[in-house]
């Protein structure tokens, strides 16, 4: 670790703590966001996520070394964590901390983009099915049933078999396109209830076109469950990426992602546990943080808990 990367790390920690403090301060003004921070783990979740996002964005600053470079494969391999190598080195003598920081970019990036694709698609399909009902609903929901019945790993394996190695963009797309089924069911159920509300009839009576009724009037009212589902989706997508990379069909090495860091370290797990430990820890922490944030959001966005 160079002085610069230590400094960047300290700044990242302080910055994420400050962000959470600022959010908390702002939240005091709104009953809803006060409810969010009433969750004991929500603030911690926010803090951890903010920290990892800062690390991902500022990877070139916080990482002392290039994540791919192998400084000395003979003498520096499986070096234990120290002041020079914060998280130790792996079997190829690469700096685990640097790989961790760059891996955060890949893993969180796929998580966020994949979830964005999944939630957008799931919301659209769910809203259309729930609004039009009848045969539109029947066709779309049977499709969703099929999607839910197929194991996702299997679909991705098929994609890999077809196109050999998937690029980052394709991997994100494939993951996103196979992760929207649950969201679409959730949104459909919400829209089925919303479409019977008077304001939908009122909007139609004003001559608002169906597409605008669905996406302009109905869907915004389903924002709360969609946001919660998005938070949970990021975790799911991240886990899927990790398992794919662990199996060697996700992000292509030597590019680091938390999933293939675990795969790389798996061989030396007894002699050099740090090679897998930190990436594994990060994945668990992100998923737990997202669940905590989703729980908080669920309470914050629940109109039934609003003061009358």
């Amino acid at each position, binding site marked *: 670790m160079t002085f610069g990367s230590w400094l960047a790390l300290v700044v990242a920690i302080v910055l994420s703590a400050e962000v959470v403090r600022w959010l908390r301060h702002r939240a005091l003004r709104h009953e809803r966001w006060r409810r969010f921070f009433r969750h004991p783990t929500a603030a911690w979740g926010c803090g951890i996520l903010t920290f990892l996002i800062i690390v991902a964005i500022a990877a070139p600053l916080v990482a002392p070394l290039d994540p791919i470079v192998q400084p000395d494969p003979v003498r520096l391999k499986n070096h234990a964590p120290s002041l020079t190598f914060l998280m130790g080195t792996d079997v190829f003598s690469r700096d685990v901390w640097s790989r961790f920081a760059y891996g955060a970019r890949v893993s969180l990036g796929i998580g966020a983009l994949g979830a964005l694709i999944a939630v957008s698609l799931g919301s659209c399909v769910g809203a259309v099915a729930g609004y039009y009902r009848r045969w539109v609903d029947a066709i779309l929901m049977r499709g969703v049933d099929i999607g839910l019945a197929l194991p996702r790993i299997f679909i991705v394996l098929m994609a890999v078999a077809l196109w050999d190695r998937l690029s980052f963009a394709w991997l994100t797309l494939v993951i996103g396109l196979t992760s929207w089924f649950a969201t679409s069911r959730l949104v459909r159920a919400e829209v089925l209830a919303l479409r019977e509300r008077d304001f939908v009839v009122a909007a139609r009576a004003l001559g608002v076109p169906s597409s605008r009724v669905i996406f302009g009037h109905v869907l915004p*009212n389903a924002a709360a469950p969609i946001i919660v589902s998005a938070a949970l989706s990021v975790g799911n997508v991240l886990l899927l990426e990790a398992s794919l990379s662990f199996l060697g069909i996700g992000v292509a090495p030597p590019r680091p992602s938390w999933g293939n860091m675990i795969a790389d370290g798996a061989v030396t797990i007894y002699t050099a546990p740090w090679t897998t430990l930190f990436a594994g820890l990060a994945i668990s922490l992100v998923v737990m943080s997202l669940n905590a944030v989703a729980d908080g959001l669920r309470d914050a966005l629940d109109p039934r808990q609003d003061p009358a």
Partner: protein
Amino acid sequence: MTATPAAALLRVRDLKTYFVTEHGRGTARAVDEVSFDLYPGETLGIVGESGCGKTVTSLSILRLVPEPPGHILPGSLIEFEGRNLLALAPPELRSIRGNQIAMIFQEPMTSLNPVFTVGDQIAEAAIIHQRLSRRAARARAIEMLKLVGIPDPEQRVDDYPHQMSGGMRQRVMIAMALICHPKVLIADEPTTALDVTIQAQILELLDRLQHELGMAVLLITHDLGVVAGHTDRVVVMYAGRVVETASTTELFEHPTHPYTEGLLAAVPRVDTPRSRLHAIPGQVPAATAWPTGCRFHPRCPYAWEKCVAQEPPLLDAGGGEGEGGRHTARCWLVTEPERRQAKR
């Protein structure tokens, strides 16, 4: 009042809107051969108890009846300025909804979208139909809020519906409906959900706006007090049928159908002290099984064999020729008036 034989703005002929009930329990004939005309500038009241088809009639005009389970039967005609609304393609229908014919609903609490400001909701129709820019539409929305009597319109335009009272929300609904200056306003029980004092304010507002904008109003209500004060002509509905039509004064002076009589007798009066309110016995039967013959006969104090056997057509009840059009009633008493003495 408009007594000129002007062409009807809206003609409804033999409107039949049926609902197929689930589990195959039959067809609910919610609206069955309803006909009436609405002339430019007038207020036509549609009166009746809950469940007699008033709301379904009003929803049918703009084709807002949920399909399925509901459907408007072929042979029905809803003509607006010579165009059959039932035969229009969806885009043409949309260009009439909210633009030429607008509607306000019973529940101002639930008819506004909770996640948008009232300004956005008022402006929407103007953006869609008049292709105004957002800025221009917002200015129009503020104008409309002023027109419907909301104080501080510049501030209130950014309020969300939950920040407003019921009466204010109904004013917002009226502003939404009138922003494109429609020729016809359908008001479906616009004051039922409101306090009595607010009710009077809203009805006065509607009267004033009708004069200012020169539109025709179809006022649907179960409240004869509202009918007396705010309509020119009345259509009385019972069990999916029109049972009596007359000018408002004629109807109150010479109610002919026993159902209208019953409704009038059921209105509480301040000038004649009475211990108990009059009530029409029984209730509106289920729409899946209307009675045979005259649909009112099981509740009618005059009913005789003919009423059970044969349904009367709309008969000319005399009087009221000229102003406000004909007075008609769907009752055999018109042909045999002496039976009025033989009350059960």
